[in-house]
């Protein structure tokens, strides 16, 4: 039974002193709800409601329920006891003022609670009547996901860098003391190169300038120089070429042998060798 049905059931019996025989508290959400339903039968603004009359209605209702041996929740009985007390206070002249709230104040507080519950129910209805998302109004049915582009940002500190470098350099230096394989320019290679040199010109050519063109890696300079010099001396000894150097550490020149100057060149070369 809904409160509305109860209302009508009760209304038909209004005017008789006998309480309604159709009693059902199932439909009520507690004593306040029952009181509110009863209050509505007074058909007046809740602000002007007669609490005394309401208390009577409630007590009659409870009494009827008891006669029918209906089991009532404790809440309802507590309210009944309180209303009976309130009723007695309202009927009797106020005896000791200042001792707790007066009967009038208690009645007003009850009326306030009833009005508050009623108002709340009304706004609750209005709230639920609002267009609700996914019931009345709808968001985009097929949202387009935001594509995530993950970009890696690498981190490394200068300390990481330096310590990695130092550690691994030190480690490899200590653990792998080894002799570097030496790249050497063979005498044969040097001789062939020199023969090509003196073959192209009968004038003096600087050996070092010529040799530079063969030296790709600086590390090879020494071996190229040494092999070339040795080959040059060999060529001079064979009388194929002559070399010339003005002073110690000065550039060495070389040319195809052309008679007279040979001995001087050889002499110079020997001196510097």
């Amino acid at each position: 039974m809904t409160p509305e049905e109860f209302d009508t059931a009760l209304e038909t019996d209004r005017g008789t002193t006998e309480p309604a025989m159709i009693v059902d508290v199932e439909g009520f959400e507690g004593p306040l709800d029952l009181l509110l339903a009863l209050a509505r039968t007074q058909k007046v603004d809740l602000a002007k409601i007669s609490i005394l009359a309401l208390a009577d209605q409630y007590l009659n209702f409870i009494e009827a329920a008891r006669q029918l041996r209906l089991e009532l929740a404790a809440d309802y009985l507590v309210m009944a006891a309180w209303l009976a007390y309130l009723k007695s206070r309202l009927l009797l002249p106020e005896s000791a003022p200042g001792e707790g709230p007066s009967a009038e104040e208690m009645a007003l507080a009850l009326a306030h609670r009833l009005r508050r519950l009623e108002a709340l129910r009304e706004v609750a209805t209005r709230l639920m009547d609002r267009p609700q998302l996914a019931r009345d109004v709808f968001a985009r049915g097929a949202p387009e996901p935001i594509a995530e582009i993950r970009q890696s940002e690498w981190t490394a500190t200068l300390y990481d860098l330096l310590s990695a470098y130092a550690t691994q350099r030190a480690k490899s230096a200590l653990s792998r003391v080894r002799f570097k394989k030496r790249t050497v320019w063979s005498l044969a290679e040097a001789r062939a190169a020199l023969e090509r040199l003196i073959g192209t010109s009968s004038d003096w050519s600087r050996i070092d300038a010529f040799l530079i063109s063969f030296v790709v890696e600086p590390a090879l300079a020494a071996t190229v120089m040494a092999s070339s010099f040795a080959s040059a001396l060999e060529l001079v000894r064979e009388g194929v070429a002559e070399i010339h150097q003005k002073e110690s550490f000065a550039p060495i020149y070389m040319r195809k042998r052309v008679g007279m100057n040979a001995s001087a060149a050889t002499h110079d070369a020997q001196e510097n060798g």
Partner: protein
Amino acid sequence: MPSVAKKLVIVQNNDAAAEPSAPVAARPEELRLLEALLFAAGQPLDEATLARRLPDGVNVKEALAALKAEYATRGVNLVKVGKKWMFRTADDLAWLLTKETVETRKLSRAAIETLAIIAYHQPVTRAEIEEIRGVVAAAGTLDVLLRTGWIRPRGRRKAPGRPITYGTTEEFLTHFGLEEVGDLPGLEELKGAGLLEGNLPAGFAVPVPSDDSALRDDEDPLDPGDLDLGLAPPPSRES
């Protein structure tokens, strides 16, 4: 009869300009961008997020206002819910679209009332909810509401027993299309009638609901374990 005034107006008729009818003041590109972002998003977006995605120098507030006005009469409206913006179908088109949805879970009367009490009286404790309803809350009511994601435990009342206080969430605002709890229907009437006061003595300031996550003076933060007790499950999505 309205008065009819006659006026003489000199119109400079510039032929050249009149010929290729000038396009209606070109629509600013930022409206396109905003439109795309908000249409694509599955969730409401706040202004800061939008600003971050838009080119520098775009006045997001103004652009949103312009876009909202543009869409006001359309089948899809731009609405502000909480501090966020989203496109939604127009309120009056529910009839057209409701067929589309599976019957949404119906809340019990107790749950609806409890939700309303939390919305209008927040922050509010379970005892206060029971006081207003005049009935002991059924065990499942708060649970059901927590599961909707519309309410959340927000703190603890500085009172004996330190009861948990409840408030509404951003999802609540989104679901009911509210910009803020101050826009709750009937709030003004309730306030005017002094019905938000609870049982406070007269002359006490009228409380106004607030879902401001800042705690009130009479609230303590939740205890560390409170949120792990299943009190606030992740906002459930309705499918």
